[in-house]
Each structure stands twice: as C-alpha cells, then as structure tokens.
C-alpha cells in the first residue's frame, strides 16, 4: 500500500449526494478478477454524458474528489476504491462517507476525509469557480488547506500511523497469531464448522 503523508492536488467538484458504489463502478466491471484497470469504468454511465464534470478537460489530472453527503453508499465492492485510485484520485472529501466504503478506502490508502457540510461547500465552490484551485491534505496535521480554508478532520492515531507508514492490515494482525490461537482454544465446541472438501 502506498503511504499517505501530505498530498497537494487539484479537486474535481462532484455536486451530488448519495453517490452510490453502483455509480462509482457499475456491476459489469465487477466480473474482472484483476485488481487493476478499473479507472476506465469509474462513473462510466455518467461519463457517457459530455457535460459530466470528469469529462471537463480543465479537471484532467485532478487528484482529490469533493462530493456531496453520503458518498460511497451501497454495495461493499472494493472495486469502487480501486477505480478511484486507478483514475488518479488520492482522497475523497465529503460531509458524510459510507462505512464500508470508508473501510475499503483506508485499506487501500485512498484517504476518506469527512468535513462539515459548509466547509465542503466552500471547497466545492472554489473548485467549480477555478479548476486550478489546489487543496492540500496534510494527514500528519489532520488538516485540509486551500481555497482560504484551514479545516481539521478526524482520524484516529492508529489508522493515521498505518496510512503514513503504508502498512497493510494482514501483516499487522499476524503479529498477534498467538492471541488468535489462544482465542480459538476457548471457543465453544458446538459452534458450527463447515465440512471441508
């Protein structure tokens, strides 16, 4: 996983609420068994509309997505995160981000940043007015800066450390293999077990 420390980039204003994962990456794309190449499918149905913001050349190369509330609702598909990253996004800013999407994003180093609705509105309006507007997301300081805004966001110490180090969860958990084995010895014997082939 690529470490995230500080990132500065331009922002795409996606002025919509309830952007669900079916819109971020339609189910046709879920048939792939690879982990890469999903950027082409990002918002693919909306991109068919020439006036859709991602089709505006002024936002080419932008790396921060600023969206309305309830971003990433719907299915658990991690493909939504892979698509955003593959397209070039490093962070999503929204007043409210769905839980599973948030977990998936954190697992892949795409930073989900929740800010108050008024702050998001300021950033969105600035990106709409001037596509060259740059925003800095400083994970160390837990701060978003740009468009005249300096806004703090919440992220717990552990998650921040993990992201800044670029560590993956499996490796971290396997350090506690003894604890897992001890827990397993105490599980009630009547819990169901699948007959393995």
């Amino acid at each position, binding site marked *: 996983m690529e470490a995230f420390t500080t990132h500065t980039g331009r922002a795409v204003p996606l002025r*919509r609420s309830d952007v669900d994962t*079916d819109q971020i990456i339609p*189910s046709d794309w879920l048939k792939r068994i690879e982990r890469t190449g999903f950027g082409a499918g990002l918002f693919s149905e909306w991109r068919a509309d020439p006036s859709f913001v991602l089709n505006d050349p002024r936002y080419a190369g932008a790396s921060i997505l600023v969206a309305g*509330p309830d971003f990433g609702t719907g299915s658990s*598909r991690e493909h939504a995160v892979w698509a955003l990253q593959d397209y070039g996004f490093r962070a999503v800013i929204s007043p409210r981000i769905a839980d599973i999407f948030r*977990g998936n994003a954190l697992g892949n180093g795409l930073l989900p940043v929740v800010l108050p609705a008024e702050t998001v509105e300021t950033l969105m309006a600035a990106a709409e007015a001037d596509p060259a507007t740059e925003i800095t997301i400083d994970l160390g300081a837990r701060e978003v800066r740009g468009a005249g805004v300096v806004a703090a966001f919440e992220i717990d110490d552990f998650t921040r450390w993990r992201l800044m180090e670029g560590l993956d969860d499996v490796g971290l*958990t396997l350090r*506690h293999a003894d604890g897992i084995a001890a827990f397993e010895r105490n599980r009630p014997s009547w819990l*169901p077990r699948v007959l393995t082939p």
Partner: protein
Amino acid sequence: MGRTLAEKVWDAHVVRRADNEPDLLYIDLHLVHEVTSPQAFEALRLAGRPVRRPDLTIATEDHNVPTTDTLAPIADPISRAQVEALRRNCADFGVRLHPMNDPGQGIVHIVGPQLGLTQPGMTIVCGDSHTATHGAFGALAFGIGTSQVEHVLATQTLPQRRPKTMAINVEGALPAGVTAKDLILAIIAQIGTGGGQGYVVEYRGEAIRALSMEGRMTVCNMSIEAGARAGLIAPDETTFEFLRGRPHAPTGADWDAAVAYWRTLATDEDAVFDREVSIDATALTPFATWGTNPGQGAPLGSSVPDPASIADPNARAAAERALAYMGLAPGTPLRDVTVDTVFIGSCTNGRLSDLRAAAEILRGRKVADGVRVLVVPGSMQVKAEAEAEGLDEVFRGAGAEWRSAGCSMCLGMNPDTLRPGERSASTSNRNFEGRQGQGGRTHLVSPEVAAATAVTGRLTAPADL
C-alpha cells in the same frame, strides 16, 4: 451498566484490545462468493499464506450465474472466468464450494441460514453488504471489502472499531396485509439512507417479535440501505425453532448448552443505546419506492412527491434527479405507474415464504399482457421445496417465468437485466440508477405487491385486486 445484544456479541469476540487501536475481532463464519473474492485469494497466493480456517469458510456461486440453461457453460466469458476462478481458488485453498447445479447452491445469504450455519451470537462476515441478513438470528453480521476478505481468509479475524448502537423500536402490530418489506422500506424512508451510518441497529418491539425468521431476515437484510452495516434482532423461541434440526445446528447436550447461551444474549433492561428511533407499526400500509435510492419511498396509496416541497436542498436535488431518471412526474399516483417487468427473488425476498406469498396472489390469475415476470428462488433448496409444493406450476400457469437460483435481476450481472427505459417492480433491495440494467427503472416492493402488480401491470397492492 447493562449491555446491548450487539455489545455482548462484540465483547465475546475480542481477541485483542489495545488503547487507540481497533479491536481485533474473531470471525465465526466467513461466507464467500465469486465477485469479491478473486483478488483476495490472489493476494494470499502471492504472499504464500493459507486460509487459516477453511472449516469456518463456505463459498457459493450466486451473482453471475445464469438462471436458465444452467447445465450449459456460462455464455458470458468474463462471468465464466470469474466463476472458474472461484472454483480454482476453493480447490487450491480447501474451501467448501456449492457450485451451480449443486443442491446447496444459492444466494450466499440464503445458504447460511438454510444450512443452520447462521446461529445467534456469532460474528459473520462476507464480501457483500447484505450480510446483515444474518443479524436476524442475533448474530453480528456485516459486509466487508475485498482487502478484508483477504484479511479474514488469512487470520480469521478483523480489526474493527466498536460501532455505536441504535434501537429501532417498532411499536404496535403490523396491520393485516403489511409485510416485513413494507416495514423496512418505511423505516429507511423515515431515517434516510445515511440514518444508520456508524451504528449497529437492533430492531425491537412487538411487530419485530411477531415476525417469522424469514420476515426478520428481510428487515435485517436492508439495514445497509439505511446506512447501517449491521442490524440484528434478539434470538427467541422463533429463532430456536427455525434452527432446530438444521444440518449445522447443535444437537443433544450441545443444543441445550447453545440455547442456554443464546438466551443470555438479549439486551439488558438497563442497557443504553446511543440513539433510539420509534416507528408506529399500526400506521403502516404497503410501500413502494419512487426514486433512485431506497430512502425515496412512500405508501403505495400516495403519489410521487413534488421535489419543490422538500426543504433540504440536497434531498431536493436528489429527488429532482431521481424523477428525471425514473421518468416520473410529481403528483402521479403510485398506483398509476405501469411496469414492464416484475422481479420476485433476491436475498431480501427470495425465500420459500416469499414465493408462497406471491404464488397465493397469482393462483388462478393471469399476468397482465406485455408484462414479463421473473420468479427466481434464492437457492436450489428453495427451488426444490417450492416445486414440491407445486408453486412453480402456479407461477407458470399465471404466465410467469420460473427460473433457477441466483442473484439474477437484483443486480443484473447475469443475463437477467432491464433494458434502457424499462421499469420494474422488484422485491430486491436497491433501486439505484442502472442497478438492474443500464437505464432500467426500479420500484422496490414486497413479494405481495410484486405479484399483484404482475396481474394489473400497474403498482398494485393485493387488497386492490
């Protein structure tokens, strides 16, 4: 202070707790399907890691599988490759798989309960957001992404932050003709698609206690549509009776020990929820969605709302977009909305009781001219049981198509899709833009409303027939 059901299940599964870190939770059951697992198995392979507990892991093919001609190879090469990848992965890692045409095959959330693998007090995960279905048994069950699938395969644990708790108290009894689906659609319309976010929801109250296990699964299934990752219901006699005698249910002295434990799980009298919401069950009527998120629903007897009357600007803009996509004018009575397709199935409403309810309405009636009706059992076992009761004959006799088990038109990853502009009444759980096929328009309803709609070609409650 007392603890809630969710807190008790959580506490019983903490492998490791450290300050400022997520809890490491043990996972009792991991359900796997073809769509969200290939990249996880591939990552294990690359790291040279085994599946830690194949005996707590079970896989089924559901999202991609065709529901006709199931003995032929899957026509779509990409779907076929994904299903074949699952078969290869399960063989390589020693995971039990129920492939197409196996009597145990079906939608992952139907298979677990039907085998008795889903039991009270367990932690259950799956790379699928409707995993909350299993909460109907008093299990803590939630959807995860592919990296977490990999994590559970490798470690049988998951680092998780303790969620907040919410009680949804459903007061009074549901009126006759009002179903679990109507109830959950009404709950989502009330609290909104983000209302449950960050919470584990416990559904409580008289109307919940009165529900069958199937009805409880329908309610818990759609917790995610209210933003909650998990929804659960305290286990009781209804739960125990459902489980008794199932293939993986405990037996003999184990059964007694298990039931004694399960009885301790109910939320303590003095437990405090972080948020409580009340719903008056007695006021509910059959429900339908009019928009493109599951919170955009209304009683079937009402009309498409006027976005201008919505105060919140985000909700107003969303309603305007939804009506444009749905091709609906404000003020149109929902009963005047005509459909091309009716879909009865999915992990929300693809169980035997759902098919029985729909068949009861279609018995001796005919599907309206020009309406395509797909009836897709949630599992091969549901299919077999329905056929043993002759329900397939009822559906076919009415002019509906009787299909094989799978997710089918719930998300249209297989050939069962809406064409652009087509409109459906669907017993599934999501009415997102394009969910059932690009340009397709979805109205979420109960199996009863779906069946009555099939007869008239317009959104219809059984009482209207």
